């Protein structure tokens, strides 16, 4: 019996990555979980985003979101490939579920889970724009560093 968990991995590729080598990397990752134990759930290309701080001299990165089910050995193999890829400048994996037998996973349910966890970057941009506007408006009213008002959750967030 193989135990596995659902994971999500954020992969940041160089902004000028080679489409071909990323495609090859993707094949290797899929092969890793296919061979060693796991299921591919969802891969999303978030596109280029400005990095909050430079990584290896890059100010922008191309973000990928990957949701998958993997046994520990498969995850290790995934990480090994990400580490040796010259196109990947950073990655981070977060476990979404506890460890359960691989065959007990409801793949449809897991797909829905990662679907719900994948925010639309457009939404995020929209929230950021509104926040910037609100902050400007606040700055006009007061000179404080931040007031409680700044922490108000007065807008609806989806997801």
């Amino acid at each position, binding site marked *: 019996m193989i135990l596995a968990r659902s994971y999500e991995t*954020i992969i*940041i590729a160089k902004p000028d990555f080679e489409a071909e080598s990323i495609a090859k990397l993707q094949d290797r990752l899929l092969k890793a979980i296919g061979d060693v134990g796991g299921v591919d759930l969802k891969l999303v290309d978030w596109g280029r985003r400005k*990095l*909050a*701080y430079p*990584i290896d001299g890059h100010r922008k*990165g191309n*973000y990928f*979101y990957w949701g998958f089910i993997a046994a520990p050995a498969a995850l290790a193999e995934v990480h090994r490939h990400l580490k040796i890829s010259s196109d990947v400048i*950073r*990655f*981070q994996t*977060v476990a979404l579920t506890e460890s359960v037998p691989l065959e007990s996973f409801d793949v449809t349910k897991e797909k829905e889970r990662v679907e719900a*966890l*994948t*925010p639309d970057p457009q*939404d*995020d*941009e929209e*929230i*950021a724009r509104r*926040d910037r506007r609100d902050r400007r408006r606040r700055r006009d009213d*007061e000179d*404080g*560093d*931040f*007031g*409680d*008002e*700044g*922490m*108000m*959750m007065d807008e609806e*967030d989806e*997801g």
Partner: protein
Amino acid sequence: MRPEFKRRRFGRRKVCPFCADKTLYIDYKTPSMLKRFITERGRIVPRRISGVCAAHQRDLQEAVKRARMVALMPFSMSGID
């Protein structure tokens, strides 16, 4: 070394925004939402000011830590949190 934002002109927030609205999900992948709980210098707002409960403050800290690792948020400029 704390600046003078101690004077609370807006009064204390009594209700944790995440307890008040169960649909708000703390996720490291939505940095815009997290930024509401971050000072301009990139530090997490203390919960005595934000009113966030202890459990949700822990989730918030975890999310901010993860968001920083994938450069969705900056590290605090003072270097300490």
